């Protein structure tokens, strides 16, 4: 149990740091994704806005969902939410705490994407280049163009190579203007997010600290209980398998002895443990039969009490009457096959 205790303490004390680590990795991945992404403004009047806003808003949504998917605790939350009440009442405060902490961590990567996008400026330049105030920024003397023409010319602002409106408004002036607006929005967004995070974190001790401690304890408890239950089931499965296989080999060995009318060979007293481990199977033929039988006819998932030394393999007595008949039929078939 010492080993388990160390592992669980590690998980517990480091569960928060582990989740924060994943959070930080996703934020870095988000910046990396942005720099690796090849932004390509279409430079057409109605497509620009859709493309620009799409790149600004769709990847954060994806990153938000990914943040939930990668969080192991989501299945724990769902299980706790949907389980029948039974003998243990459900505490909505605990569920809310679990959901809030997951949502907060999932919000970080999308916020990083939006900030990086706004501070870089390409998205906003692409999306809003047709809304540049030509009257204030543009050249006063230019031939009057129709509204549609002006839109088409302005839409090409992000694509310097094909821009043909230098008389209408200088490309650098428009780009600088849009980029300034974008960066201002970006910094305001970051300031807003940071202020919100600060308020959420610092107002909590001022209000519901006791309720918070309770919710935190029980949410950690649910997590630990689930992990311990899984460990206990794994241990149980291991023991179950061990006994099942042991009984299989014993059964095989007894049957083969019965079939060949050999006297059960008594291992010499000093061979000890090694002979016991052979489980009565001591030659190639027997082993082959055992292996074939294991594949063709696996024993039922039902451990019977240890067999008496005379090899009475009929484990009929002591079997609970409520058992379904299927396993018993399997047992009977096995013996009659031999």
């Amino acid at each position, binding site marked *: 149990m010492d080993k388990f205790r160390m592992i669980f303490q590690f998980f517990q004390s480091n569960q928060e740091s582990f989740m924060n680590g994943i959070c930080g990795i996703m934020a870095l991945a988000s910046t990396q994704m942005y720099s690796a992404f090849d932004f390509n403004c279409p430079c057409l009047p109605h497509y620009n806005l859709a493309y620009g806003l799409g790149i600004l808003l769709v990847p954060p949504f994806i990153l938000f969902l990914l943040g939930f998917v990668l969080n192991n605790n989501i299945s724990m939350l769902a299980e706790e939410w949907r389980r029948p009440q039974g003998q243990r009442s459900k505490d909505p405060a605990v569920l809310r705490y679990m959901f809030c902490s997951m949502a907060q961590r999932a919000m970080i990567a999308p916020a990083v994407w939006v900030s990086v996008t706004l501070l870089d400026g390409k998205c906003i330049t692409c999306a809003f280049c047709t809304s540049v105030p030509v009257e204030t920024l543009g050249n006063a003397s230019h031939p009057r163009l129709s509204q549609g023409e002006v839109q088409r010319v302005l839409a090409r602002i992000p694509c310097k190579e094909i821009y043909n409106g230098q008389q209408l408004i200088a490309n650098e002036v428009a780009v600088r203007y849009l980029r300034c607006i974008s960066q201002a929005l970006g910094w305001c967004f970051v300031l807003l997010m940071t202020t919100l995070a600060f308020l959420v974190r*610092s107002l909590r001790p001022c209000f519901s600290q006791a309720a918070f401690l309770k919710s935190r304890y029980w949410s950690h408890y649910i997590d630990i*209980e689930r992990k311990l239950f899984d460990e206990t089931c794994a241990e149980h499965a291991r023991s179950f398998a061990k006994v099942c296989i042991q009984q299989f080999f014993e059964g095989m060995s007894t049957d083969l002895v019965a079939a060949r009318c050999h006297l059960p060979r008594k291992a010499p007293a000093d061979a000890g443990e090694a002979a016991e481990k052979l489980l009565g199977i001591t030659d190639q033929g027997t082993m082959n039969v055992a292996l074939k039988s294991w594949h063709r006819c696996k024993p039922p998932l039902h451990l019977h009490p240890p067999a008496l030394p005379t090899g009475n393999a009929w484990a009929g007595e*002591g079997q609970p009457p409520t058992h379904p008949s299927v396993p018993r039929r399997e047992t009977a078939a096995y013996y009659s096959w031999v």
Partner: protein
Amino acid sequence: MDRFRMIFQYFQSNSESVMNGICGLLALASVKMYTSFDFSCPCLPQYNMAYGLGIMFVPPIILFLCGLILNRQSLVMLEEWRRPPGRRKKDLAVIRYMCSSIMQRAMVAPVVWIIVTLLDGKCLICALSGSMDPEKFVGFANVSTEQVQQLLAKVPCKDDELMRNSSSRKAVSRYLRCWSQALGWSILLVLIITAFLARWLRPCFDQTTLLQARHWSNYIDIEQKIFEETCCEHSRLFAHKCILHFFESMRQEIKLHSFSLPRQGEGAEGEEDLLQGITDQDQVNKLLKTWYCEKPPLDVS
């Protein structure tokens, strides 16, 4: 217990170093953020000042708030401040000490940003180029007022077609940069002198109060950590007991329903103890279903 002792000693000796480390990391992050940020002055008369001063002052506020958020001790201090007195009096000197140490650490990254900005000069050039006196510079002296505003606003943009090879632009730029760097170095000097004096002169004042405040603030921090560790340990033991009770109650229920004889086997007893009486696929399925549908009550008395 040895292990716990080692861990707690580590926390105690290193809680200050952990906080200093975070402070240093934030300062480095601040420099990195500045170098990777693509400063792009709008070069328009009304926008320059707002942009320049915004870039100089908004990120420091963000870095300050980050410094407060990332510092664990700020939560501890807030809890200590807001808790009901109960049976333990609150010592305001301790809270003040904690508050001042948190603030000092949180101020490092914003100050680094401001100093780097000033030493680099771009922000101040962008913000103040429109406020220059055109008479001082040859190229702008004989231009009409509206035009001069436009031209001065374009000074930060080296690649603008009007400003590409203008020597007056370079003159304004150099002048502003000189002021910016002088301001940056002066602020740095003043801060270092203040820090030096504060550290050197501190023992001349009330040293005992300081030692007490520091001790008790450390104590509160450690007490909080130990409480969390104890809660973890407790919840683990609670869960362990709860699960054992659950398996036991399942075993009894199965005994009740299945009338099986008590087993007297010898060989595999060790293993079968671990099996807890559950030795059948259906029993295992029932156990798992009961675990989900009817979790045991949180009561291990």
